[in-house]
């Protein structure tokens, strides 16, 4: 297999103009925030430099190892487990039309349950330890991945299926997984945002560490700049994960029409 070819770069505006476009509005917004918060002296709206200082003091110490990394670890573990389960179950269900017809209403029902209500339920069943939090993430992330895998496998191209059978090409890897991968990636993308929500919520409920717990702690103690720094950190995590996901998606789906420039 050859390496995916770099898409030819579109001739665009010069670098300076592009930079101005990308940074102009964010800089303006931060300046506006600065101006408003500095003049209004609102207790709830600290100036950006206060928040930046609080950010450095709060998160660049022991909290990275104590709160941030364990949270991310649980997210990763739950997400990975949900992906394996979702794809592993989705392929056989998608291949068997009768099983699919029987399973779909049940799956749709589970997907329709707002994932956060699973937190109190799973707390009942599994206590309040790390396993519970991972289980919560799995139970929320599973359904979008599973349903999208089923749908992707169902919609496989029939001509391709017959061709593969004719030539005896390994069906699972080259036909089923590959053919369903655009749909599977859609499910994985939906599951990622559900996973982040559940990571935060499961820690807000019953926990003594973790990102969600720490942010609520700041809010209850009226440590406003620290609380804002926590919101900022969650935002940065959400942003970074979505950039990472897009990078992975481009590598996995480089062959697909939607990624061919």
């Amino acid at each position: 297999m050859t390496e995916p070819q770099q898409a030819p770069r579109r001739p665009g505006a010069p670098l300076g103009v592009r930079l101005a476009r990308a940074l102009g509005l964010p800089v303006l917004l931060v300046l506006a925030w600065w101006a408003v918060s500095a003049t209004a002296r609102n207790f709830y709206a600290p100036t950006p430099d206060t928040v930046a200082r609080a950010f450095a003091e709060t998160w660049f110490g022991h909290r990275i190892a104590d709160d941030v990394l364990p949270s991310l670890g649980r997210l990763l573990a739950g997400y990975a487990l949900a992906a394996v389960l979702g794809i592993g179950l989705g392929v056989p269900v998608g291949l068997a039309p009768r099983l699919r017809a029987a399973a779909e209403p049940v799956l749709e029902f589970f997907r329709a349950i707002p994932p956060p209500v699973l937190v109190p339920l799973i707390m009942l069943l599994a206590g309040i330890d790390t396993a519970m939090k991972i289980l919560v993430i799995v139970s929320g992330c599973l359904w979008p991945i599973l349903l999208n895998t089923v749908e992707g496998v169902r919609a496989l191209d029939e001509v391709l299926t017959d061709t593969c059978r004719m030539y005896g090409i390994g069906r699972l890897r080259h036909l089923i997984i590959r053919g369903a991968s655009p749909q599977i990636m859609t499910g994985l993308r939906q599951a990622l945002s559900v996973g982040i929500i559940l990571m935060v919520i499961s820690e807000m409920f019953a926990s003594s560490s973790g990102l969600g717990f720490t942010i609520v702690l700041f809010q209850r103690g009226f440590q406003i700049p620290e609380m804002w720094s926590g919101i900022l950190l969650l935002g940065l995590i959400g942003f970074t994960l979505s950039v990472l996901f897009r990078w992975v998606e481009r590598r996995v789906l480089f062959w697909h029409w939607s990624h061919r420039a």
Partner: protein
Amino acid sequence: MVSRFWYGLAGLAVLLAVMEAVPRLGLVDPRFLPPASRILGELGALLATPELWAALGETMRGWGIGLAVAFTAAVAIGFVIGIVPGLRAATHSTIEFLRPIPSVALIPLATLLFGASLGSTLLLVIYASFWQVLIQVLYGVADLDTVAADTARAYRLGWWTRIRHLVWPTALPYVMTGLRLGATVAFILAITAELVIGSPGLGLEIQLAQSSGAVTTVYALVVLTGLIGIAVNLGVRLLERRVLAWHPSVRGEVPA
């Protein structure tokens, strides 16, 4: 089509049977997982109480107002950004940064500003569903057929005519997709705000039932939220089908 329905029904029956058998056979402590019949019985009993309907009303009010505000704002802003030249490039980085921020990050802020009230619910619901709709509107406006756009320009159609008869019909399928995604997310966030912050509604009822150890009630309410989730989804799909009855993607689905 008919057999699909029966298979689906059979699937649900199997689920109920398993949920009934597992606690009855002692595989899981019935205190933590009551049999399905007890859960459904509890749901029936709850549905007869006015408190449940009041809570349901609160949840749907937060959902409805939040979704309406987010949808209107996102469509208006999306059209302005999509149509005014240069605005899209200038806002792209900001939108791409704000969009993936998980709305639950705003929970502490909502708690401080509004406490356990409708305001908290609205803040979370609006933030979460706004981006879903906005992104779809931006895709929709960008999908404009260049020949149609050039034709409109050649005929010197006014800007309002162009929006009304060219941009709006092009973007409408995307707008409806955005509404569907936004409606689901708005419902999730409405329940979340009630559950975590304690604004009145079904989420608060779940939290109260859980902390008082009424396990069957927790299960019954969770089942109810699932049913409402399905109803929300079906309702928006129905609306989508009506609004887009003229569109090829919907027309094609109806057998001649």
